[in-house]
C-alpha cells in the first residue's frame, strides 16, 4: 500500500544495502563533480526514450496545471464545487454534469478537479517532510558512522517495523483528524526510506579519493556532504521521491476513505469515494470517478518514477 512497501520491493531497493547485493552498486556514483553535467544529459536522453514516462510527465504537468488554475481562478470550473443544490442531488452523468452530482447536488467533475489540489499538495508536502528529515538523518548517519549511525539507523528500523498506513492512522488517531495532520503523519512514516538510501550511498562514496582529498584541503563536514556527496546521491533520491508521492497520495486517499481526512465541504478524492460507498448501487458514479482520479494520478507518478529509475540506472534500462 504504502510508500514503505514500495521501498521494500522495487528492484533497486535490494541494492540499498551494499552488503546484501553487491552486484547492484548504483552506477551514478561517478567520482567527480565535473561529470555531473554529462550525467544529467545522459539521464535526459535515456528518459526521453521512454514513451510511457514522457506521457506520465505530461499527465502530471496537466494535473499540476489543473491544481494551480482551479486554485487561482475557481471561476474556470463548470460549477462551484462547494455549492449545494439539494434539489439536484444524485443526477446521473450527462453533458451538464460529466461525472454526475453527489448527495448534496454538487458537481462531481468540479469536485474532482478541485480535489487535485489536495492530493498533489499532500503528496508533495509529505514527501518534502520525509525527504528533508530523511536525507539529513541518513547523511549524518552515513557520514559520521559509529554510534551516531547505529542510533539513527536503529530508530529508522523501529519506524519501518510498523506498516506505514497503520502508523499514519495511529498518528492521526492521536493528533486528531485533518488534512494538515495527515500530511505530517504520512511524511513522518516514510522518513526511514530516504535515510536508508542516502546512508548506504554515502557509505559507498565517502571513502572515495576525492572525498578524502576534500577533507585534506580542510573542507568542513557539511561542505563535503553538500558539495561532494549529495549531488551523487540525488538521482536515486529523486526516483524514490517520485514513487513516494504516489505512495503518499494513496495513503492520503486511504485516510480520507476511512473518514480521517478533510473538513467538509472540502473535496478530497478518498473522502468522496468513501461517501460514494453507500450509494454503490443507486449512484455508482459517485465512487467510480474519484477512484479513477486516484488511480490515474498514482499511475502517472509510478510511471514517472519507473522512467526516472530506468534513466538513472542503465542496467535496468537494458531491460
Amino acid at each position: 500500500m504504502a510508500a514503505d512497501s514500495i521501498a521494500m520491493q522495487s528492484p533497486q531497493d535490494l541494492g540499498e544495502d551494499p552488503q546484501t547485493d553487491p552486484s547492484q552498486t548504483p552506477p551514478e556514483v561517478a567520482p567527480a563533480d565535473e561529470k555531473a553535467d554529462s550525467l544529467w544529459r545522459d539521464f535526459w536522453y535515456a528518459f526521453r526514450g521512454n514513451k510511457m514516462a514522457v506521457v506520465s510527465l505530461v499527465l502530471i504537468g496537466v494535473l499540476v496545471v489543473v491544481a494551480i488554475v482551479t486554485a487561482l481562478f475557481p471561476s474556470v470550473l463548470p460549477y462551484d464545487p462547494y455549492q449545494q443544490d439539494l434539489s439536484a442531488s444524485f443526477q446521473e452523468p450527462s453533458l451538464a454534469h460529466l461525472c454526475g452530482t453527489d448527495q448534496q447536488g454538487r458537481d462531481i467533475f468540479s469536485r474532482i478537479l478541485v480535489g487535485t489540489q489536495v492530493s498533489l499538495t499532500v503528496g508533495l508536502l509529505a514527501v518534502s517532510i520525509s525527504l528533508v528529515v530523511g536525507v539529513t538523518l541518513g547523511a549524518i548517519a552515513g557520514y559520521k558512522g559509529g554510534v551516531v549511525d547505529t542510533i539513527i539507523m536503529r530508530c529508522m528500523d523501529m519506524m519501518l517495523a510498523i506498516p506505514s498506513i497503520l502508523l499514519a492512522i495511529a498518528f492521526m488517531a492521536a493528533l486528531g483528524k485533518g488534512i494538515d495532520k495527515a500530511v505530517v503523519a504520512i511524511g513522518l512514516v516514510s522518513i526511514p526510506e530516504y535515510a536508508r538510501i542516502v546512508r548506504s550511498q554515502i557509505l559507498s562514496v565517502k571513502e572515495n579519493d576525492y572525498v578524502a582529498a576534500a577533507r585534506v584541503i580542510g573542507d568542513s563536514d557539511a561542505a563535503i556532504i553538500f558539495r561532494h556527496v549529495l549531488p551523487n546521491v540525488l538521482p536515486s533520491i529523486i526516483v524514490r521521491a517520485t514513487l513516494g508521492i504516489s505512495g503518499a497520495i494513496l495513503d492520503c486517499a486511504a485516510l480520507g476513505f476511512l473518514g480521517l481526512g478533510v473538513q467538509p465541504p472540502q473535496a478530497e478524492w478518498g473522502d468522496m469515494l468513501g461517501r460514494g460507498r453507500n450509494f454503490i448501487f443507486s449512484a455508482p458514479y459517485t465512487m467510480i470517478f474519484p477512484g479513477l482520479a486516484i488511480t490515474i494520478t498514482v499511475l502517472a507518478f509510478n510511471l514517472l518514477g519507473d522512467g526516472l529509475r530506468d534513466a538513472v540506472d542503465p542496467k535496468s534500462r537494458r531491460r
Partner: protein
Amino acid sequence: MAKYVVKRILQSILVLLGVSIIVFLIMRVFSSDPAPVVLGEHATTEAMEAWRESNGLNDPIIVQYFNFLGGALTGDLGTSYYTHTAVTQEIMSRFPATIELALVAIIIAAVLGVVLGVVSAVHKGSFVDGFSMILALVGVSMPIFWLGILLIILFAGVLHVLPSGGRIDPLLQPVGGTGFYLLDTLLSGDFEAFGNALQHIILPAVALSMYSMAIITRMTRSSMLDTLNEDYVRTARAKGLPEGRVTKHHALRNAMLPVTTVIGLQLGSLLGGAMLTETVFAWPGIGKYTVECILKSDFPVVQGVVLLIGVIFVIINLVVDIIYAYLDPRIKYSKEEG
C-alpha cells in the same frame, strides 16, 4: 553464521523495544485524555481524577512506560475502554481471521506473481509480458479499497456468484479448533463449510493480494532477466541445453532468491493493507477492528494492535534475513552494518 544470527536477533529485540516506545509515545503522550472517553456520560471531575489515579495515568511518564512494557511482556495489554475486555483477548479472537486472509492473499500473490514474472521474462516483449506489466502497474496504483468495492459490485451485486462480505455462513461456522476456518473445516471433514469459507475469502484475498502480486511480478521478471543474462546461463545455453531446461534448472532457481525475500516482506505489509480490505469486506479481523477502535478512541486496543503487528513485522524481517543469509553465500556477515 551463528554469530550473524545472534547479532540479528539482538538487533531485533532492540528494534522491538523501540517499537514499544513509539507506540507508547503516540498513544499516551500525544493523544488526548482518555478519562472522559472511558467514564462518559455521568463523569465528574473527581471521578475522572480518581480513574486516572487508579489507572496509573498520574504516574511519571517513565513509570507508565515500564508498566506498559511489563504488561506487554506478560501478555497484558490492558483493557478495552469500550468493551471492558482484555485487549489481548480482543485481539486474539480476531487475529486468526486476519492471518488466514493474509496467508491466502500472499499465496495468490506469490503464485500468480512468480508465474507472470517468469513468463514475462522468458517471453520478453510478448503479449503476456505487456499484459503483466500493465497489470503490475495498475496493481500498485489502484487504491485497494476501490478495487474491493468494484469486486463486490461485480461479483456480489451483479453476478451474485460470491458473497459480499463476512467469513462464513454463521450456521456452518466451526467452533473451537484453530480459528482458521479453512483449516478447521477441512480437518473436521465438513466440506460444505469449507467450500463456504472458501467462497467468502476469495474476493477479499484477491483485493488484498493485488498490490503484492504486482510487486512480486515485477521483481520476478527483473530478477529473471538478470539471471538469464548471467554467464553461467549463457554457458548452459551455449552447451546446447534446451531453452526450457535452461530456464527451469539454471535461471529460475537463482532468480528466486531475491523473490523469496520480497514475498516474505510482503506478508508483513499485507497486514497494513488488511485494515482497508477488512473494512470493505466486513472481514472480522484485527484490521477492521482497529479502524473501529481508532474511530472510537479505544487507545489500549490500537496500542496493542500496533505493537503486535510491529512484533510480527520484525520477526518476519528477521526470518527473511536469516534465510537469505543462509541461501546466499555472497553475504559477508562480518561487514554487517551496525
